[in-house]
């Protein structure tokens, strides 16, 4: 989540072996998020992180790290800022793409972004998302919100199978992946794994803790 500590945390994640970093732009009512990311958003908003500050944070992170950066946010921020302007300014600030958690593929199709598909998605929608997506597809592993789960979702394997049959796009799996063991299992199916809530919890203990956690994930994927 964009905030005061983000530059140091991003550098730590890169040092730990992250290939890509999502930077959350907080929204007051994040429907796709579980308690950890929701609380992080509340805290960021309380610290004054609005769109302009988040874009500046992105710029600062971009100066420090070289991996691709992807802001993750919600429609209301883009509605207020201007849809095209948001996309353009985020890229100008160093974003390689964008994730908008509550923007289905058929709404504002002109905005280039990473599309999400879920276990509930029809084949027709997966094909549409694959055709529209910007670089890779985000596979939501569970019907649910973000946040750690005890085990890897059994819905991931059939989702990967269905999606592979429809597209050659790289598939990164996220939502509910919290441990190196789960990441390793997910990586046997998908081309990459996205870890959010568990990384935020590790980051609560500072950049060194986050670097160590990311390094464990990295090692599990080796």
């Amino acid at each position: 989540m964009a905030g005061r500590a983000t530059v140091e945390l991003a550098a730590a994640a890169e040092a730990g072996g992250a290939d890509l970093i999502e930077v959350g732009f907080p929204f007051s009512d994040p429907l796709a998020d579980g308690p950890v990311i929701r609380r992080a958003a509340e805290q960021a908003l309380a610290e004054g992180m609005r769109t302009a500050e988040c874009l500046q944070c992105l710029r600062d992170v971009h100066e420090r790290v070289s991996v691709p950066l992807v802001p993750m946010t919600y429609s209301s921020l883009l509605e207020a800022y201007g849809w095209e302007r948001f996309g353009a300014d985020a890229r100008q600030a160093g974003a390689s793409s964008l994730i908008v958690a509550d923007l289905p593929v058929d709404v504002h199709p002109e905005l280039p972004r990473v599309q999400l598909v879920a276990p509930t998605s029809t084949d027709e929608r997966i094909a549409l998302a694959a055709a529209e997506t910007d670089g890779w597809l985000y596979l939501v592993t569970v019907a649910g919100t973000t946040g750690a789960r005890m085990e890897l979702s059994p819905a991931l394997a059939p989702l990967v199978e269905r999606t592979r049959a429809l597209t050659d796009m790289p598939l990164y799996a996220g939502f509910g992946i919290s441990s190196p063991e789960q990441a390793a299992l997910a990586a046997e199916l998908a081309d990459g794994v996205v870890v959010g809530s568990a990384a935020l919890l590790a980051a609560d203990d500072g950049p060194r803790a986050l670097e160590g956690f990311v390094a464990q994930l990295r090692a599990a994927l080796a």
Partner: protein
Amino acid sequence: MTARTYGAYGGRYVPETLIPALDELERGWKAATEDPAFRSDLDSLGEHYVGRPSPLYETVRFAPSDRRIVLKREDLNHTGAHKINNALGQILLAARLGKRRIVAETGAGQHGVATATVCARFGLECVVYMGAEDIRRQHPNVERMRLLGAEVRAVEFGTKTLKEATSEAIRDWIANVETTYYLIGSCVGPAPYPSIVRELQAVIGREARAQMLVAYDRLPDAVVACVGGGSNAIGLFAGFLDDAEVRLVGVEAAGAASLGTGRAAVLHGARSSVLADEDGQVLDAHSISAGLDYPGVGPEHAALRDSGRAEYVTATDDEALAAFHRLAETEGILPALEPAHALARALDLDAELVLVGLSGRGDKDLAEVLEH
């Protein structure tokens, strides 16, 4: 029938996980509305279970001497508010879709009670999300829901009111979408919900228009209703939208005027007029009435405001309280605090014959009123 947008408002701004469920809902609703059995079940339950049609009642001592004020008595419905109209229709829809578990949000508790009631009637599991602040100020309705067999889950973060309760109900739905029906309480949320709720509440306006013609041989000069999410207002307005000479007046709580002071933003799956800051962050609403304490509003109201077909004004907490006491003392009717806002504006509206949607009764509000 199932509009997805109203002018520039409405739509579906939800995580992808929900899109297939919204498609299923839209198909199910279309099939239901085309099925005479659905309509006859709904009408029969409306008559025998809810007590429809609700009466029109012209106030005797409440109205100032220069005007006549007629109340559409949704407060006399089973469970005490208009919310049951929507809950019954949607529970029939849920049953058609084969869902056995129902989730809902509630603010004042009226929608939660209506949902718990129809779940008891149809033997379905019921989970109601309610903000901790609303649980405090609407405690009788919490006890009612529990007696009806519902599980009430307190939402302890953020504003601890309807906004957060709605978010949590939607999150629950995302996580249990295969088995669960989300029974939304107002004409808000992603399409097709605003359209479904409007059609189910339109019975209020249909009845009221016919009753006015029978009783007065004319239509009212103005139709007034309170607006939180806006379901009782849209249901009442629906009967008069095509009567250009009838003024439609929505009354918002002064501290929750999504239409009066809001801006275009995205909340709970739809683009509408929302109390939000310039960055699109949703602001807290403030109202003595838990049912109006919501920073968003149904997208059709935003479109009606923009087109000028309906006008939207506000009433303060004090004005609503004064109207509450006045109706109690002059007519022997305790209104809910929500329609007390509409009553307050009806008193000073420049119109001779005024129809007011009395959307609910005030039993739930006694503690709040006595505190002030």
